[in-house]
């Protein structure tokens, strides 16, 4: 009984994936995005990029949740966070994840950069991906900086005063940078609004496409070895899959095997 349900479910799953593959090529795409030949030795070190992506995803999710209660005005910001921390169900957990994964994110990015640097992963043709990665790093740093003020407590307030005043030492545009961040010439309600807009809308919106470019370039060149080696490995992988496919096709002859065969023909 259970065996029959199992095989039935398997069949249905296969049917759905074939159906999707035939219409959108999603299976091939996932295969391309998820299969990554890496050396067996030290394979775990290649997960640092995924770890960064995972923590960023956590930031997005918990950030969206925090927005359900947070009020970005000088007279309510602190109080709304107090509410999140003391009254809202699991508020401490949601905000704790946002806070700690933000801290871990910077650590993970540092390790990720070190791994790429020491393994020479920034060399041709991957220089552009290093540049995109540095842009991502800067965006994350500014996100961390602007998020600090939103608490509107003594800690975040004075840290932001220090940060904004560091900007005032910029050559030639010190005053303009400061007044842009302050939204005036003193720290006040406009400053909080600005930091909120930058933290919640501007930078996440800028971050997302750069993550996309980063991943696209990663998949274009691979993380390991030369381009030649990588394409060679991928070709071997596809060849093996094709042979397996062919064998299976011969086994249950007569059944229609639209999706996969279609893909094999196309290649």
């Amino acid at each position, binding site marked *: 009984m259970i065996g029959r349900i199992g095989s039935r479910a398997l069949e249905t799953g296969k049917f759905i994936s074939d159906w999707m593959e035939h219409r959108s090529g999603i299976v091939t795409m996932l295969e391309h995005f998820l299969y990554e030949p890496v050396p067996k030795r030290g394979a775990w070190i290649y997960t640092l990029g995924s770890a960064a992506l995972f923590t960023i995803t956590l930031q997005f999710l918990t950030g969206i949740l925090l927005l359900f209660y947070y009020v970005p005005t000088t007279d309510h910001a602190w109080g709304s966070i107090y509410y999140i921390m003391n009254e809202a169900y699991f508020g401490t957990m949601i905000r704790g994840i946002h806070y700690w994964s933000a801290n871990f994110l910077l650590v993970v990015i540092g390790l990720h950069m070190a791994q790429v640097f020491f393994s020479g992963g920034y060399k041709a043709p991957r220089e552009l991906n290093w540049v995109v990665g540095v842009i991502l790093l800067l965006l994350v740093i500014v996100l961390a900086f602007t998020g600090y003020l939103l608490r509107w407590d003594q800690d975040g307030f004075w840290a932001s005063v220090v940060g904004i005043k560091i900007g005032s030492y910029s050559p030639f545009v010190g*005053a303009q940078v400061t007044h842009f961040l302050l939204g*005036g010439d003193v720290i006040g309600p*406009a400053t909080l609004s600005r930091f909120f807009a930058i933290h919640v809308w501007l930078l996440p919106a800028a971050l997302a496409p750069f993550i996309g470019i980063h991943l696209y370039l990663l998949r274009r060149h691979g993380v390991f070895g030369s381009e030649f080696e990588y394409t060679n490995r991928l070709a071997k992988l596809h060849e093996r899959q094709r042979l397996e496919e062919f064998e299976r096709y011969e086994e249950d002859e007569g059944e229609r095997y639209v999706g996969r065969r279609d893909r094999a023909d196309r290649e």
Partner: protein
Amino acid sequence: MAELQKDPITRKDLLGLGVLGAVVGAILTIPPAAFVLGPVIRTDVLGETNVSNDWFRAGSIEEVPAKEPQVFEVEFPIDQAYAGDVQKAGPQTQRSQNEFAVKNAIWVSWKTEILPDGSYGESLRPAFLSGGVNEPLNQEQIQEVQETLNVLSNSCAHLGCPVRWFEAEGVGEFRCPCHGGIYNINGSLVSGPPPRGMYSYTSEVREDGNIYVKHEFDVGGGLNEQAPFVI
């Protein structure tokens, strides 16, 4: 070489596209840029400020002892973003009954002689104050007081953290909690990272013996010219 443009483009078309692109680009970018950079335009180009330009009372000169600064808190009303305009438009509405202000701590001390080894000599506190303030002060007394008074901002000249007066073994100094800037009783830099001494307010002493301040600071008057900015 990768080639994007298949058809050759004439000079006329190129120039036309360039002009059209510039016009469309300007229409698309100028409004949002001006919208976001409004505060920069207002403060740095038009020279406006969010802070009220009035004089505010800090405290009485009587309260300031010799050889030790006295702190006064002053709230300067500000008009920034939604703070002021809403109240003007509808003073009776619930929307914003709060007055927005920047709260400044002002350290006031009498100018003190600094000996070559850095310790404090005689305080220049006017002698007529020893018997208390007899109102109204005459012009000479006001003159003397204004010349011997330090009216200092507590915002560190380094990165704006609030400095405090510490006294240890009879010697006092202003210390910054963030990066260890140290100033003496006159607000001059003793050690640490700040590029100059503490900022002084524009201040005046009136006949009633009170110190009045404006939200204005000396920008020069130190090792380099650096505005206090975030106060």
